[in-house]
């Protein structure tokens, strides 16, 4: 901070303004022994920051100067209260994985059921970082090059205008490290995808590979009734003919037809498109019905003529 700047802010107090309800750093071990998910980034910030920033940032963290901290995909937006009347705005931008890299990573994560299982209880096995590295993806899971350059990861910005990392960033990094210790999966979000979405995509991918497809519809109850179908090994005496229940089916009257019954039960579409979907579906159902009737009755006249 230059002299000129100091002179232009004569009314700034000695100590930062107090914040009520800010994020306080309360970790028992202090800044020692952060896990692998949090430690590299935190250390990298401390080593690149000036000792003054480290010291002040640390005390800011303890007094809870961090007012907000919002992690969105690839980015953290935070505000830290310093001596100025308004909190400084921080923006920490992480390098995100490209969609192709994500596809690769999700596919790799699906290969072992243990990953999906650990993720579900909020754990991130260290093997994940190694796995991502072996895929040849340039950006590692855990960011280690904080700075203000375009090539930094993450790129640190603060409205205080000071050299980066400034004390505000250092303060905020305490809180982030604590968060990453508790919620290691947050790293995925920092790399560009919400955690829930990662879990969903893993689930999606896994059902796709085990069941062959993902469906938007439920399976009918009869389909899962194992007692209905006799194993073919037990049908050697009657291998070729349909079973008795075909006769039952054919002698039972068909259910009555109610126009657009399903559509009326479905109600409005949740997809939120502007296209008038339900109206179009009604026309589609009627067109299809006409077609079905034509098919059902298709031969009755031709056949009779042949006779």
């Amino acid at each position, binding site marked *: 901070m230059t002299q000129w700047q100091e002179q232009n802010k004569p009314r700034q107090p000695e100590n930062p303004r107090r914040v009520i309800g800010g994020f306080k750093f309360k970790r028992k071990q202090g800044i020692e022994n952060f896990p692998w998910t949090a430690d590299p980034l935190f250390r990298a910030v401390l080593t690149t920051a000036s000792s003054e920033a480290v010291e002040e940032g640390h005390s800011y963290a303890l007094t809870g100067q961090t007012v907000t901290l919002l992690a969105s995909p690839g980015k953290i937006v935070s505000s830290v209260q310093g001596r100025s009347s308004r909190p400084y705005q921080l923006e920490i931008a992480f390098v995100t994985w490209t969609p192709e890299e994500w596809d690769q990573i999700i596919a790799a994560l699906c290969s072992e059921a243990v990953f999906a299982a650990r993720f579900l209880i909020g754990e991130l096995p260290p093997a994940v970082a190694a796995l991502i590295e072996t895929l040849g993806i340039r950006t590692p899971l855990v960011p280690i090059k904080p700075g203000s350059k375009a090539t930094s990861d993450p790129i640190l910005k603060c409205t205080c205008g000071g050299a980066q990392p400034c004390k505000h960033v250092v303060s905020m990094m305490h809180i982030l490290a604590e968060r990453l210790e508790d919620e290691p999966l947050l790293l995925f979000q920092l790399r560009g995808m919400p955690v829930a979405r990662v879990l969903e995509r893993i689930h999606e991918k896994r059902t796709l590979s085990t069941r062959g497809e993902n469906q938007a519809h*439920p399976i009918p109850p009869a389909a899962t009734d194992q007692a209905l179908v006799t194993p073919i090994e037990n049908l050697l005496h009657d291998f070729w003919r349909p079973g008795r229940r075909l006769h039952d089916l054919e002698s039972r009257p068909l259910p009555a037809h109610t126009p657009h019954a399903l559509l009326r039960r479905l109600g409005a579409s949740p997809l939120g498109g502007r296209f008038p979907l339900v109206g179009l579906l009604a026309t589609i159902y009627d067109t299809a019905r006409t077609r079905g009737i034509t098919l059902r009755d298709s031969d009755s006249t031709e056949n009779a003529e042949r006779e």
Partner: protein
Amino acid sequence: MLVVHANWSDGSLHLWGESLSSARENVSVESPAHPFATSAKDLRSALEPIIGSLNGAKDDHLDLLLPHAPSHAGDPAVRSVTLPSSRLAGLLGQASHDEELRTLEPTRVSTLRIAPSSTIRLLLEMRNLEETPNDLFVAAHSMHWWLALTQFAINSVIDQRVIPTVLQRRDGTYVGQWRPWLNDNDADAQLADLLASMPAAARAIDGTDGQAWPIVDSFLSTIVDGIVRAALIEENFEESIEDFDPTIDSHAAWLSGLLGIKNSIKVGRRSPFDVLRDTRGWLSVLDEARVTTGMRLRFEVSEPDLDGADDGIDSVWHVGFGLVDPDAPETVIDAQSLFDRPSGKRANANSVRNEELSEMLLKELARASRIWPELDDALEDETPSGIDLNTKQVYQFMRDLRPILLEAGFFVEVPEWWGESASRINANLLIDSPEEPPTAGDAVGGSNGSLGLGLQSLVGYRWQVALGSQSVSIEMLEKLAQKGTPLVRVGGQWVDLRPEDIDSALKFLKSHPGGTMTLVEALRMANGIDGPPEALPVSGVQATGWVRQLLSGNDASESFQMTGPPKAFRGVLRPYQLSGLSWLVFLDRLGLGACLADDMGLGKTIQLIALLQHERSKIGAAQIGPSLLVTPMSVMGNWKRELMRFAPELKVHIQHGLDRPAGERFTQIAQEHDVVLTTYAIVVRDKETLQTVQWRRVVLDEAQYIKNPPTKQTAAIRSINTQSRIALTGTPVENRLAELWSILEFCCPGYLGTNQDFRRRFAAPIERNRDQKTAERLRSLVRPFILRRLKTDLKVISDLPPLVESRQHIVLTDEQMRLYDEVVADMLQKVDQTDGIRRRGLVLSALVKLKQICNHPAHYLGEGIAARPNGVSSKKKGAAIEPVEITEDSESETSGDPSLILPPSSLLPARSGKTQRLMEMLEELLAAGDCALIFTQYRQMGHLLVAMIRQVLDVEPLFLHGGTPQAKRDALVERFQKGDGTTPIFVLSLKAGGVGLNLTAANHVFHFDRWWNPAVENQATDRAFRIGQTRTVNVHKYVCTGSIEERIDQMIEQKTELATNIIGAGDAWLTELSTGQLRDMLTLRRSGLEGGE
């Protein structure tokens, strides 16, 4: 002839063929490939002439798991051979292998993979061919199941039980798909039937685990998607989303995979997975009633309290809410009671429960309001217990909303009268006719029993419109129409009065003021054909006079005069037979044809004989023209015998044989007789001769033989001049539509319209759409002309003894007679030159041969014994080998059943009078859903019967003989007794199956050949006729006319002294007879029935 199979694999229909000719060629080739499978090329050339080009189909192959039997061939490398399918085995007449030795082995077959675009067309072609056989191929048994599945898919589309859904495929791409919605109770029940009945063959794809659902799922969604998409492409639905950018609009994105040829979802700004997830969320609405547990909302519509005169148009209806447990819907928790403040000591416990329940109620109301938005108004109330509706609204609720609410799992109670046809507008036909029918009398110019004009008789009629049970005038209708409400009270009764119904009723009444019409027109109109429009259902026909009698038919026998038994009848007619006779007399007098379709064994023959006698007792034989009786050859002997026994006074001429009269001479002879008995074959040949006579009546026995489509034979029969026509059949003719038309076209020409007309109007809706209304309409249309009593009918059962025994007198075929004569001549010549043991041996062996000849020439000639599929040469039984087959089970066999491959000609039931008759009777009783035991003394004859039954009747008979191991016997008996209709025929050897077993599932017992000891036969009969039997048991004993069988049968019947010897000593007594006695005993006696065919 080729058998066509279908399988579904990887989203495509595969067809593959099996054939007789490849079987013959390959049968000796020991190759692990399917010995019967055809090449794709052969399959194509068999199919294309019939179903059209298969250009889009590709040659492919499938690996299936098919049943194999252990191989007995020399090459040890070949452990097993593929068995033919049930259809091919039937065509081959191949006997079954022991089931326990069968295994499933991978087998590759060449297939035609059908292009997706032509799959539906091909399946529909197959469906249309189901009724019309062709010469090139026949569908495998499983095909019927595939067609049922196809029909199910089509019905889903027709019923709009189809959902647009999204799938993510294995490769990660997203596609739109139309598929059937199967999660409703109705659809699920049908799906369960389809899954449970799926043939093993349809899911025996190697590498899968034989599961039904994956195949059914893939098939149904492919077919449904194909149908819907084709319709949408044709109507250019894709255009409708053209103006919407799928990358922006999620609806357009979703629809982009559903409307056109391409099914991929265009990637929008949102991930396609979001579309999948949102679609899932939306569709789950349909399923939530099933998924969520707990109580269901119940609506109850209560009628407003009104006095009698109020028309109810302005009244207020209350629809009350309640909760029910879906598993016990009788107990209703009224919504009002939930909101009432509980008081007293138990209040606490109650209030917790009530809170839970009212929570459920609110949840259910919210769910229902998605379907019925007006419910939201009720929810504004803090304690919603019901909703008030005006008459118009309540009508809409009951008519439109109720079915949807029910489908969504809600319960809806409506007043009883709702939906009843009595509460709708309907029409009554009033027919006026005199007590006595008009007669043709002088018009025909004869006084020979002046017959009615039949279907052409004129009757007076007028129409009447009724609301509920009240008839109303045109003026009143018009007044009601002006009120414009669909629900109105008339005479204190609510009526569902749709404006469109009133319009069509008014229009119809004005154009049909009444007058006269013919009986045909009246009957057709009364049953809603050529009558009022659909909206104006005919609720009833009120007739007077003879038409009333006709319509009430035999249901109310008191309505017409009962005829007493004819004096000349030598026997006793049971009460139901008398009422049958009265019915025949009544229709005959009106000049109407009749079809007597009583169950087998109820005595159709004697009812007809009584009719012949009845008319002669009234007018005198001389004045009545002759009746022509047309029968299959196989029952001619029976007819002759029955006529002689019950009506010996009737003069019967048998028009049969090579030297039968023709031309003038025949006309002369016919006039001099009461009855001319002939066969279907002769009718065709002697058409011109028969046409020269004016017949009093033509009677067809086993009338189901005039089948559809019309043949030369049918045309010949219809061309005969006759005053009246009667058809006799034992099949449930009203359920067999092709037969029904043919038979009624004979009895009542023109009544059911042209064949084409009949198919369009009745057969197609009933068979394909399972249209109950049309079926009921047809039943009531034909009811006056068909009389069918079942052995189980209450009226009949009280008349019937528990055991009815009859003899079937069988005429030998020419081939049988020739063989019979040869054996007798040969034996008589030899016995004179021998004596002692040798002579006895000669006589006994001749006796065995004669019995075999009576059974079937193939039995005697030893055709078709024990030829294994791998080409072990068949044992030829020539004259040089003395048969030693005196009792059964003496045939030496090493293990299991032989697998018989017979030259198909040996299997012709027509070569033997007995087998021909047996097949006819079995077909009839199968049609009626009955079960039969067939006893024979000979294991080899049993094999022949099994093969013929399989070939002719296409059912799998059970077979038990001396070589059947105990465990298998038990299994056979258990399967038969299960009575599920899959194994209705049980062939047993008399010795092995005649004692001990409990086979009460059978209600027919056939003694195919005879054992001269009645006690042994009775013991066999008692397998079915014993404790646990609830039906009448019919015993049919087969006897060849003129043969040794008949001779001995008569002696036993007459209880001659000789007979007691016979019964005691088996066949030994015969050997003691002199040559003269032997000649007398064995020589075939001609009866005038043989030959000529």
